[in-house]
């Protein structure tokens, strides 16, 4: 019985330590996050860090790491703590990761997800928890559209620094039709919502401009032999092949197009999924003369970024969305800095709605991916990267020898005769 009393006393002691909380004054519509004097500022990431798409997650995580390092790991005297969740590249992964992030009340905002499918499932949970979700690589138009009739799944709190397919696809079509003078088009996607959506917008816009879409097909992730589909395309001899897919399938398509008769005069075009500095090297000679649409990365700052990457993380970024992740993190941290209110006890109080508003109000943010301004109108609610921040780049021999980023071939608003 003595032992029993001892346990009882111990537990009573434990309870006794618990002190009542004093509710802070907070008039934010979604509530506030209180950060004690010695507590960290917590942000989270939900990226695909395992499985076949983990190169995307590793890429974005690097961007976030360097962004936080850029703040010396501190914001307003508080340590920045970064909670990593693995959202995979799937709906269920996004949902589970979102539940976990939402359960941690100290999280202010989330950088993620890498895949639109994960975002679609995560968004309702993230939004209900009052969080913000800034994506470095979700490009699906439905995510920033609140018109459910049109398939829109937008929820408040969603932002992205990635380019909406509607911008990128349209720019690609414009470039192909107006600048390259192409009149027939073939597109290839890889079964990912990203590539499928992008080629769809491209094809639609191209057709609207007056061109003819002669082939729309797909390959599978993991295919290495592209001869069959390229032969099929060659029989239609289009002016342009647009394949907005990722490495390594994009490498395979580009490289193998050299072997196919009938594609000698066809121009190859890719998108930001392949906008990686390893792309020319991995593709070989076939990359020369190819066009990629991608973020209008700032030359010098980006070089410095890559240098830092090599130093801190090692090697080169494994995909094309690290700069977007870097910018997304900085936008988030800027906004936190802007809305944080110092409390009497030396801590911080951050309103969740205020944070959303601050991000939505981001204008002319000078990022690595160009000048970003967050939109508020459907179908671009939360789109921080507009068409202005996009360009079409041409890969030349210099890129094959190691130069990156490639020279800008065209950007919206540029005079066509140039």
């Amino acid at each position, binding site marked *: 019985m003595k032992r029993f009393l001892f346990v009882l006393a111990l537990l009573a002691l434990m309870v006794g330590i618990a002190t009542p909380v004093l509710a802070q004054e907070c008039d934010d519509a979604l509530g506030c996050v209180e950060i004690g004097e010695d507590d960290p500022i917590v942000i989270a990431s939900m990226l695909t860090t395992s499985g076949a798409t983990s190169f995307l997650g590793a890429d974005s995580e690097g961007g976030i790491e360097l962004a936080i390092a850029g703040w010396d790991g501190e914001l307003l005297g508080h340590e920045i703590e970064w909670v990593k969740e693995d959202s995979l590249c799937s709906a269920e992964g996004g949902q589970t990761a979102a539940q976990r992030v939402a359960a941690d009340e100290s999280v202010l905002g989330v950088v993620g997800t890498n895949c639109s499918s994960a975002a679609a499932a995560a968004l309702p949970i993230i939004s209900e928890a009052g969080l913000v979700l800034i994506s470095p690589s979700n490009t699906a138009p439905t995510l920033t559209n609140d018109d459910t009739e049109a398939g829109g799944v937008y929820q408040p709190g969603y932002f992205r620094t990635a380019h909406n397919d509607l911008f990128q696809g349209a720019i690609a079509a414009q470039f192909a039709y107006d600048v390259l003078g192409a009149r027939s088009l073939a597109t290839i996607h890889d079964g990912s919502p990203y590539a499928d959506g992008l080629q769809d917008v491209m094809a639609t816009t191209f057709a609207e401009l007056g061109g003819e879409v002669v082939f729309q097909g797909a390959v599978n992730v*993991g295919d290495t032999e592209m001869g069959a589909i390229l032969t099929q395309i060659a029989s239609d001899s289009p002016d342009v092949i647009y394949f907005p897919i990722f490495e390594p399938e994009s490498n395979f398509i580009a490289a193998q197009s050299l072997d196919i008769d009938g594609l000698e005069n066809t121009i190859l075009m890719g998108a930001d999924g392949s906008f990686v500095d390893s792309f020319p090297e991995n593709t070989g000679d076939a990359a020369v003369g190819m066009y990629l649409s991608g973020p209008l990365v700032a030359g010098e700052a980006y070089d410095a970024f890559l240098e830092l990457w090599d130093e801190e993380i090692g090697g080169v970024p494994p995909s094309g969305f690290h700069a977007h992740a870097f910018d997304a993190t900085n936008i988030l941290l800027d906004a936190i800095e802007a809305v944080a209110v110092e409390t009497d006890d030396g801590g911080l109080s951050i309103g969740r709605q205020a944070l959303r508003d601050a991000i939505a109000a981001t204008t002319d943010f000078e990022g690595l991916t160009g000048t970003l301004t967050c939109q508020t109108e459907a179908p671009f609610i939360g789109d921080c990267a507009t068409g202005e921040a996009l360009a079409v780049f041409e890969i030349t021999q210099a890129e094959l020898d190691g130069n990156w980023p490639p020279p800008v071939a065209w950007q919206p608003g540029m005079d066509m005769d140039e």
Partner: protein
Amino acid sequence: MSRYLDDFSLVDFTINALRVVIIVLVFWGAFNTLTLPADAGRITGEQWFDLFVAGLTQGSIYALIALGYTLVYGILLMINFAHGEIFMAGAFTTVFLATWMDKIGFLNGYPFVAIPLLIIFSGFISMIIAVLLERIAYRPLRGAPRLVPLITAIGASFFLQYTFRGLYGSGFKSYPTVDILKGSVAISGFSIPIARIFVFVSALVLMGGLYWLVERTKIGKAMRAVSEDKEVARLMGIDINFVIMFTFALGGLLAGAAGVINGLYRPQGVNFFMGFRPGIKAFTAAVLGGIGSVPGAMLGGLFLGVIEAIGPNLVMTGLGIPGPNQLQDVIAFTMLVLVLIFRPQGIIGERLTEKKA
């Protein structure tokens, strides 16, 4: 009449009906494709030939990997699910050596020395991984229920993938291009890229070597003896453990070699996940040919490669299915099922008609 009814089996009927339906579909699709008007995207004879050669090339790589499955299966009756990862281990590790050789100019300077060196190196790495795998993970499982080694192999597959991801990172690497493999040669009016000839010839040499080893040498005899009956082989004084280890080493060697050959032919896409799909395909090829049979694996690989290359365009285009290339696996696996319906033991699998597998 009643005797006829007694013999009637719904299952047999359905299987036969299915057989007929698939064959009709295949022929109808092929017929439609081949009779397309020339301006509606018809593929020329030359292009068909190109596809066929591409299929053979891809198929010989499948065959090299499939041999590893089939060798191990023949002896242990286990599916070494991690074999694709053994292929990856060699290919992924050797990419660094190849890049370095390219950088110092050795690769293009002395290609006839460098390429065999790469193949040997890669084969060696894969061999070590395969032998370690056998020693650590599989050996203690001898005599365990059949599914236990399979699950172990699945575990090993994950383990190896993420080990190499940890070692070399998650990005994509690519092999350097070798000048002598560029261009093509004309053979009786058809032009065939040299790289394809290289793959085909090296695969043939390796497979021939293996065949010789298994059929003509002492260790080959021991392997066959062990695969027939382990107990009797042991009584005859054969060191079972050594033979099994040797088999794994052989399979690993071929897979590693296939890794470099594949890398020089299709340089891109070298990363930790690169073994998974070829692994499944090669496994399919091994079963297609008749698992456990060495010539079967070779034939199955080539067959699968050709089906994949030609099937989508030939059949699906004719049936008016959009995005046919996306469905090449559907064709490959339908063919597999069809072959297995006709010949449940695979194309060359007579040994397994006994109640053994």
